[in-house]
């Protein structure tokens, strides 16, 4: 390595972006080691090695590429979209940056490494930390670090090594597809969502896939060979994209594994890691409209509300119902206070759905005190969600809707927040045709599905089913979800299994 020379300091000032103002940068020298170099686009501060070595040059290029294409102060907004986790977004952004550096002519595959990756690989396996192994694989993909990391993994678990190599190849292929859209490095501001940089949408899309990969249980992957502690395997592939990832992973796909069959048809667990698929690359940012809520006047009173009610009980302090000592075989002479269950019913009022005022009344009567709301985007930037019933009151006439969806996910989030108590059911009436700003998108569908799974939202396909469900729940019966076909279809395509009931 030659002596340090500040003339090799990177020049982020020269880079242009459409989403930030340019200005003076502070560039400081640092060690060429993972975790130390950094770039703050907002603070225009860069820490990068200024040594004259191929490795330092690749790190400088990496930091410069961050300055060129990574989100500036909008990262929080991307995070708040809740399509992918911060961890996944971070590692996929590393991948995007390294990929673009390679496209710009820097030899990342040969020189970008800090020498500690092999130990990292061994540590991940030793700790059984699959999530960290996936994250590191993605962050290292397309660089010299990848080979060393996977070698470290293979030393202790060849199956993991094979699965991670498959993931690295597929991640690279996803980047290839994204690059073909011509927007991978775009720093434009999306005119609809006002999000920037537009190129980060590819990071988000792939990060959503990485999240699912990180949640995958590697023990579910069937063994096709015994591989524990097989020693070094440096000669195995280091992630060259073959363009035949499915074929490449075919070797580890089970043909008649009992476990995988169960996973596929019963619990919804993916069959193999290769069944967990990324979404298709597109130029548009899958997004929702802003939720605009209106409370419709509610002059009508309905039966019951969330008020407390006393019921007979066989335990208690004051025997208020002494007469039951003679009349009740259970001798419930005490009182117990119970509360109405309440609930939230969210209705997709898009063109593909239909329901009447009397059906809404029946819903409210089935679940006293429940909140009922409907949503549909009318396309004129006006109200797109209406609260129809609340606290035992309901509207007289239904507002006109039956247009687009536009706000399925924000409406769902709103409905979850309206729960009267944590046990109150949230019922979502939808035919599954969720539509965002730019139309339907698997990412948006999966986002809704994940929210339903996370918050135990019950999905039914029409208002009648919702009414029956609430009535059954009121009587203490448990009801299963009726996932719309589009939900199960998207989930199966992306995760390889069935949605949990």
């Amino acid at each position, binding site marked *: 390595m030659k002596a340090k020379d500040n*003339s090799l300091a990177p*020049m982020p*000032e020269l*880079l242009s972006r459409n989403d930030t103002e340019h200005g*003076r940068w502070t560039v400081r020298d640092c060690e060429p080691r993972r975790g130390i170099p950094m770039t703050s686009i907002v603070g225009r501060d860069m820490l990068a090695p200024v040594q004259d070595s191929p490795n330092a040059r690749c790190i400088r290029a990496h930091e410069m590429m961050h300055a060129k294409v990574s989100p500036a102060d909008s990262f929080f907004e991307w995070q708040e979209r809740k399509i992918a986790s911060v961890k996944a977004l971070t590692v996929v952004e590393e991948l995007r940056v390294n990929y673009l550096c390679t496209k710009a002519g820097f030899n990342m595959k040969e020189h970008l490494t800090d020498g500690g990756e092999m130990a990292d690989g061994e540590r991940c396996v030793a700790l059984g930390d699959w999530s960290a192994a996936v994250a590191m694989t993605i962050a290292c993909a397309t660089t010299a670090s990848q080979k060393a990391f996977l070698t470290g993994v293979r030393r202790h678990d060849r199956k993991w090594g094979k699965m991670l190599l498959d993931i690295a190849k597929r991640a690279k292929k996803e980047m290839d597809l994204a690059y073909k859209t011509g927007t991978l490095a*775009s720093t434009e501001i999306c005119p609809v969502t006002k999000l920037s940089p537009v190129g980060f949408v590819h990071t988000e899309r792939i990060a959503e896939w990485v999240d699912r990969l990180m949640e995958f249980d590697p023990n579910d992957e069937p063994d096709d060979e015994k591989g524990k502690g097989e020693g070094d395997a440096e000669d195995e592939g280091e992630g060259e994209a073959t363009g035949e990832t499915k074929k490449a992973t075919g070797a580890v796909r089970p043909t008649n594994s009992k476990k995988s069959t169960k996973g596929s048809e019963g619990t919804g667990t993916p069959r193999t890691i290769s069944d967990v698929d990324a979404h298709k690359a597109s130029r548009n940012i899958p997004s929702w409209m802003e939720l605009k809520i209106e409370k419709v006047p509610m002059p009508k009173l309905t039966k019951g509300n969330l008020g407390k009610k006393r019921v007979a009980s066989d335990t208690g302090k004051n025997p208020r119902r002494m007469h039951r000592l003679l009349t009740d075989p259970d001798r419930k002479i005490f009182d117990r206070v119970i509360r109405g269950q309440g609930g939230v019913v969210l209705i997709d009022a898009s063109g593909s759905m239909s329901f009447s005022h009397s059906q809404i009344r029946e819903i409210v009567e089935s679940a006293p005190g429940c909140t009922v709301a409907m949503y549909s985007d009318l396309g004129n930037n006006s109200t797109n969600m209406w609260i129809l019933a609340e606290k035992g009151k309901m509207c007289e006439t239904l507002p006109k809707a039956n247009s687009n969806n536009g706000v399925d996910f924000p409406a769902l989030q709103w409905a979850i927040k309206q729960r009267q108590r944590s046990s109150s059911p949230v019922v979502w009436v939808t035919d599954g045709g969720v539509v965002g700003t730019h139309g339907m998108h698997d990412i948006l569908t999966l986002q809704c599905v994940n929210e339903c799974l996370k918050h135990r939202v019950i999905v039914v396909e029409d208002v009648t089913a919702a009414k029956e469900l609430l009535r059954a729940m009121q009587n203490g019966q448990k009801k299963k979800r009726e996932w719309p076909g589009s939900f199960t279809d998207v989930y199966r395509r992306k995760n390889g299994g069935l949605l949990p009931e």
Partner: protein
Amino acid sequence: MATTDTTLALPKCWQTLNECLDSGIDRVILFGPSGIGKTFAGLTMGEVEAGAHRLVCAEDMTTGDVTGHFLQEENGTFRWMFGAALKAWQGNGVRGGRLVADEIDKAGGDVAATLLAMLDSPESASWEHPNTGQIIKPLDGFSVIMTTNVEDMRELPTALADRFPVRIRINEPHPNALKRLSPDLRPMAIRSADAGERRISLRAFYDFDKLRTTLGMERAAEIVFHERASSILDAIAIEKVSV
């Protein structure tokens, strides 16, 4: 200045200058990094039909450069030579001209004092010809643009700075100056103009642009940017990823 190329938007700083000059402001300080066209703007923008006269301030200059001096003729007589400020006062004889005072922060004490008198308000500004005794006053239309690389206006003499309430920081080259450059280098030239110690001058980009057509990128960068060539070439490679 010639009309702006419609393909290049006029940066805010230049828009502000245009607005000030169009509104009749006749005392403006332009400050900011060197080499991005402040002087050129002073000499050409706004009403300069009556002539623009440049006064480059330096420590060893004298008041003669400002107001004028006697010059000995071949026959032994002396002829009065007007300085830049008085030439600008008189303009074309009908309208006053433009005085462009460059590097104003470098003017010595006596020059600064003379300039104070020359840049006073038109009602109180006057000067007596040492030979003829004629009282000269600035004609209508006289304007002054001072330029400096100093970023903190408190470094200028207070009395002088008081005469120039309008101060515009020029941080981008004028689009017309960029027209000489190949389109792919223009955004970089704009960004590097205000990069502080790490700036690359517009003139360096002109030469790099010329040389690369015959010698190729690497050789041209070596000749023009010297030891910074590698960093600048890397930046160019990264910039090209999304254009």
